[in-house]
C-alpha cells in the first residue's frame, strides 16, 4: 500500500539505536499493477490452483516483515489485523486493483508473482507496518508505485491492511 515509515511503532518503542536503523527508516516498495494500468503485466505462468502439494514449502512467519512474500509489500500486514498473508480481516473488502511483486521463495528456490491486494473499508489497522521498497517508482509509473492508496474499485477508499497472495510462478528471465 502506501509508502511510509518503516516500523514506526517499533521505532517509538525503542528510540535508541537510531543510527543503526536509519537505512530502513522509510522505504517504499515496488511491483506492478494488475488491472487498469496501460503497462503490461509481468509474464505469469499459472501454477495449478487445485491438487497442489499437501504441504507446500514455505519458511518463516507471515507476521514478520522479512517473510518471503512481502518482498514488495508496503503497509500494515493483514496477518496482524485478523486476516492472513492472503485473506482479509473480517468485515473488510479486498481491493480488486493491486500491485504486483516478484518474490523469491527460498524454500523451493522459485520466483513467484505476488499480488498485494489491499483490504479496505475500515480504519488503518495500525499493526505490523512493513515496508520493503525494491523496484518502487514514483506515481508517474502507476504500475510500479506504492505511494498511492490502492483501495481503488472498492466501495470504500479507506485503507485497512495489505495481503500478499501467490498468483503464479514467475517465468524465468
Amino acid at each position: 500500500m502506501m509508502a511510509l515509515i518503516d516500523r514506526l511503532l517499533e521505532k517509538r518503542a525503542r528510540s535508541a539505536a537510531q543510527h543503526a536503523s536509519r537505512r530502513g527508516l522509510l522505504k517504499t516498495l515496488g511491483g506492478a499493477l494488475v488491472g487498469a494500468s496501460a503497462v503490461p503485466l509481468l509474464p505469469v505462468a499459472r501454477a495449478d490452483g487445485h491438487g497442489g502439494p499437501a504441504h507446500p514449502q514455505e519458511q518463516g512467519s507471515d507476521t514478520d516483515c522479512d517473510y518471503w512474500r512481502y518482498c514488495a509489500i508496503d503497509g500494515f500486514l493483514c496477518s496482524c489485523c485478523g486476516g492472513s498473508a492472503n485473506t482479509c480481516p473480517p468485515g473488510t473488502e479486498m481491493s480488486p486493483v493491486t500491485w504486483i511483486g516478484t518474490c523469491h521463495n527460498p524454500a523451493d528456490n522459485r520466483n513467484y508473482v505476488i499480488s498485494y491486494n489491499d483490504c479496505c473499508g475500515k480504519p488503518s489497522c495500525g499493526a505490523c507496518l512493513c515496508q520493503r521498497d525494491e523496484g518502487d517508482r514514483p506515481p508517474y509509473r502507476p504500475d510500479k508505485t506504492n505511494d498511492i492508496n490502492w483501495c481503488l474499485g472498492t466501495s470504500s477508499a479507506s485503507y485497512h491492511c495489505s495481503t500478499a497472495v501467490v498468483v503464479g510462478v514467475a517465468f524465468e528471465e
Partner: protein
Amino acid sequence: MLRKSLLLAVLVGICGQVAAAEPPPPLPVEPTGVIETLPDRYPAEWFLVHDAAFFHMSDGKVYVIDTSKDTVGEQVQGMFPVNLMGSYLQVPSRGEIMSVETFHTRGTRGDRFDVLTIWDNANLAVVAEVQLPGSKRFMGMPQRVALRTMNNDRWLAIFNLSPSTSVTLVDLETRSIVNEIPTPGCSFVYGNGDMTFSSVCADGRMLTVVLDENGAEQSRGFSDVFFDSDDTPIFERPAQVGDMAYFPAFDGRVQPVAMGASAAMPMASWSLIGEGEESWAPSGIGLDGEDDLGRIYFLMNPEANGVDGMHNAGGAEIWVYDPEARRRVLRIPLQEWGLSFAVGRGEEPKVLVTNPVDMSVELYDGLTGDFIRKITGFGQETPLMIMSAQ
C-alpha cells in the same frame, strides 16, 4: 547465530538435494477476495479493547483480541470503528454488537448524524443502522452503563445526555425507535429485570422505570437518598453479581444496590479497605468488574482516598472480594499501573488491564493474581476501556 547458520546450512543442503533429485511442485495459485470470519460467540479468552483515540476522536475503534496468544498476529482477530467517543454493547443472544456513534458529513464539520450501528459477531460487518434523532446520545469517556438490552434482548436502551437526560428505546427486530423516556436528573441505564431499568440521580437516589410490552412507561419510582453526590459520591459503574450492583464509592466503601425487577433498593454499604489501608481508594475509568465465581474486582489507588480529584487516576493494584462475606480474597499487584480493566468469563477468569503508561494492555490470572503477558503493538492509541467477550 551459530545455530542459525547451522540450520541454514542444513536447509540449503536439504533443498539442494531435493532440487537435484526431483523439484517439488510449485505453490498453488491462491484465491483472492477471501475475507475471514469469526465465531458467532467469542471464546472466553477474547476481550474487546476500546481505543477511543483521544488524539484522533473521529477514528475511534474496538479491537477484538485473543489474549491467550503470544504474538500480535495471533492476538488480533479484527476490529470495528466506533466513531467520536461512541458506546457499544455486545448482545450474544443475537450474535451482534450494538454501537452508538456520531458522524459529520465532512469529518469534523457538516451535518451531524447519530446512529446505532449493528455489527454481526461473525463478520464484524454492518448488518443494520438506525438513525438516532436529536443529537442527544451520551458522548464522553467510554462507559459500560450507557447501553443495555431489555425485553429478552429485543430492545436496546440508549442513554442520552445533552445535557438533559433520557433513554431512547430501539426495537432490534424492526430496527426502529420505540420510545424515548425522560429521566430528568438521573443518568445511565442499569439492568433491573427485563422490563425495568434504573438510573442514578444527582440527588443521591435511584430512579426505576417500568415499561409495558409496547415500551411505554408504566410506572416510575425513586429509592431513598443513599449518597450525597457532593460529599460522598459513588462511581456510576457498578460491579454486578446476579441482581446486586456493587457501586464503589470515592471514599473506599462499596454500595450494594439490589436490582430485583422492582424499585432499585440500596443496601448497607461496607468498606473495601482495612487497617493500614486508609490511603487507598477505588480509581480509574473501567475500574471494576465481576467474574462467574461471584467475586467482584476493584482497581485501587494507594494515594486517592480523601484526595480530591484522584478518583479517575487509576491504580496500582486490583483487589478482589467475596461480596457475600465482604472479604478480600486476592490482591493483584499490577506490573506498572492500571487505568481500566475487564474480567473474562469462566471458572478460571483472566483480567485484562489497560496500562496507561505505555498504552499496552496486560493480562493477569484472576485466581492467582499472576501476571501472564503484555499485549501491545496492535495499532492502539488510547485503549481507555476494555470489555470481556460475551
